[in-house]
């Protein structure tokens, strides 16, 4: 056969709840109940509040660099709801706060973490979340590995989900994670929050492809592009992917098309590289606005509930911040003690003496007074 087609593929886009809060009823079938919608809306709203307070904490010098989630919350909550808390694993980047909270991470941990304290990543037993990943694009392999362990142990009811940005897809480890997952056919979901920017680089300069979703074609991995500001579409795509995963159908890819409404982090100033007009256009697609519109249209939400939620959010976040601020100051020994299950002697000496020279490890040999040693 001289000239023939050996492979064909296409990428579908899914939107169920549009920018105006209008739902496609047919597509919405078997997705979210109204109660669930309200729940997810509340999660998003609280997360938004946290973002704003975190921003203020940073600006007033009480917190280091912090990456806001603003505008992207639907990706986190819609997908997190499709995963099973305490059973599945979440391997996050750093812009999915709401997903982490929904899966049991105490809210103040995230503040404590960004205040420069590793204990904010010491999640309680039973919370199946890996720590926020500072090196971009490198953590998805851990999700592949975790999902591989499920398969290996025949824990047929478990899946892993990993979140990452559009920028993260440029790292080699993205490719490695996708290839291993597809070769091993592990129950893993790759969720890309395509928020159009990686710090100052627009998506079009990050990659040459029309969509992020098509990157999965390289691995014959089921893939879909969804409106990432639409909790219905996000939920549906993730549930479908999870169902496929636990039924032995292997990994899936989801591109959530969304937008980073805030600066990259509090250390960034997005006005240097993007037009306000672009931001304004996306402000109208805000998941909170459209979800609220939908809830109001079906009569499960009104201004009173909104007011009540806003004040509740304030209270929650205030408590969260108080909790984060009131944790004890870490001590230097902490960064020694958690280096290894059991500390090598040499490191014990470093910890106990806060010295890095081994003079005096054996005072008799070097003739220094013992008192001198421990000074």
């Amino acid at each position, binding site marked *: 056969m001289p000239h023939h087609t050996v492979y064909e593929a296409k990428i579908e886009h899914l939107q169920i709840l549009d920018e105006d809060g209008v739902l496609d009823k047919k597509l919405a079938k078997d997705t979210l109940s109204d109660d669930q919608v309200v729940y997810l809306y509340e999660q998003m709203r609280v997360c938004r509040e946290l973002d704003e307070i975190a921003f203020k904490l940073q600006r007033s010098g009480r917190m280091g660099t912090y990456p806001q989630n603003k505008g992207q919350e639907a990706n986190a909550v819609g997908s997190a709801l499709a995963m099973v808390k305490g059973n599945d694993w979440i391997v996050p980047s750093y812009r999915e706060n709401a997903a982490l909270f929904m899966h049991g991470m105490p809210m103040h941990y995230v503040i404590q973490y960004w205040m420069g304290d590793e204990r904010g990543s010491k999640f309680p037993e039973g919370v199946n979340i890996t720590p926020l990943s500072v090196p971009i694009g490198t953590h998805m392999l851990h999700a592949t*590995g975790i999902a591989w362990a499920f398969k290996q142990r025949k824990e047929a009811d478990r899946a892993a989900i990993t979140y990452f940005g559009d920028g993260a897809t440029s790292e080699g480890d993205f490719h490695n*994670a996708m290839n291993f997952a597809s070769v091993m056919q592990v129950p893993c979901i790759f969720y890309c929050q395509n928020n159009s920017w990686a710090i100052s680089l627009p998506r079009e300069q990050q990659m040459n492809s029309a969509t992020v979703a098509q990157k999965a074609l390289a691995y014959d991995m089921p893939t879909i592009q969804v409106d990432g500001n639409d909790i219905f579409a996000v939920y549906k795509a993730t549930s479908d992917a999870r169902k496929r995963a636990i039924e032995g159908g292997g990994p899936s890819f989801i591109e959530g098309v969304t937008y980073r409404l805030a600066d990259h982090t509090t250390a960034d100033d997005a006005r240097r590289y993007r037009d306000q007009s672009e931001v304004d256009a996306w402000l109208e697609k805000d998941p909170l606005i459209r979800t609220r519109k939908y809830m109001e249209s079906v009569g499960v939400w009104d201004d009173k509930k909104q007011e009540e939620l806003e004040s509740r959010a304030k209270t929650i976040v205030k408590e969260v911040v108080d909790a984060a601020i009131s944790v004890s100051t870490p001590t230097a020994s902490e960064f020694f003690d*958690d280096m*290894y*299950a059991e500390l*090598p002697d040499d490191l014990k000496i470093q910890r106990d003496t806060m010295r890095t020279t081994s003079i005096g490890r*054996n005072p008799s*040999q070097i003739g220094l007074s013992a008192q001198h040693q421990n000074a």
Partner: protein
Amino acid sequence: MAEQTLVGAITSTLDQALARDPDVILLGEDIGVNGGVFRATEGLMATHGEDRVVSTPLDETGIMGTAIGLAIAGMKPIPEIQFEGFLGPAYDQFVNHAARMRTRTRSAVTVPMTVRVPVGGGIHAPELHSDSPEVIYAHSPGIKVLMPCTPYDAKGLLNSAIKDPDPVIFFEPKRVYRTFKEEVPDEYYEIPMGEAKVVSEGEDLTIVTWGAPVFQCLEAIDNLPEDVSVELIDLRSIYPFDMDTVAESVCKTGRCVIVHEAPLTGGFGAEIAARVMEECFLHLEAPVQRVAGFDTIMPYYKLENEYLPEAPRILKGITECLAY
């Protein structure tokens, strides 16, 4: 009890680990049906199944990164990297994730894994098949670094590594994979990490080395005049490392030669030399000498023996140190 080569001892230790613990999983390039390019996993897939001895895609990043995930989920992965020169693509996952997961989460998430890597020169292999990068990992906190060079030590240290709750890199000096056999007990035993071995006792000078050069040192010692008595220490464990044994010996002999294949500058020999000075200062009768690889790329095989610290060069180091 049976006579085994170094590689044989590794194979049987892995075999026992797979049999003992269902959470143990081996992954690496060509380790399945092919038994690995050095045959270190020969027969293991047949015995334990292809889901436990897994030939992976050609991707060291992926091997290391998925091993981290496996470990997080409670497995005990034993990844193999085919040659030390191919640790490059796995470097970031290893030192920036595996080594940091425990401290990053204050021990909530841990990464028990043993990365097996053939190491060193002397087998006439192509470029990037003959290097000795141990100090890179010894300098990276959160990792334990082993390099046994005898079948007995290999089994004991590999068992300790597999049992350890933290990431261990286990270097296997490929040059001595099959050069000799020795008795290795059939039953399980451990050799604690961080304990050096005194290979031969002596009074006049201490040699500290690890990996294949142990045997070049023995050859050098054999060629010394009868009245010179050298204490030979095989470090075995590069991190943690056993300064007690080293310092005690050098305080006794007053002279020290360090031998390693890796380039001199910034090699682990520098650390040992610095510590020896710190801990044996008043006992030292000569500066510590380092007989090491040169600060060049390990040359392709026509010249590799010029590069490696072979017996004559070690002998010269010993002689000069004694003459000081």
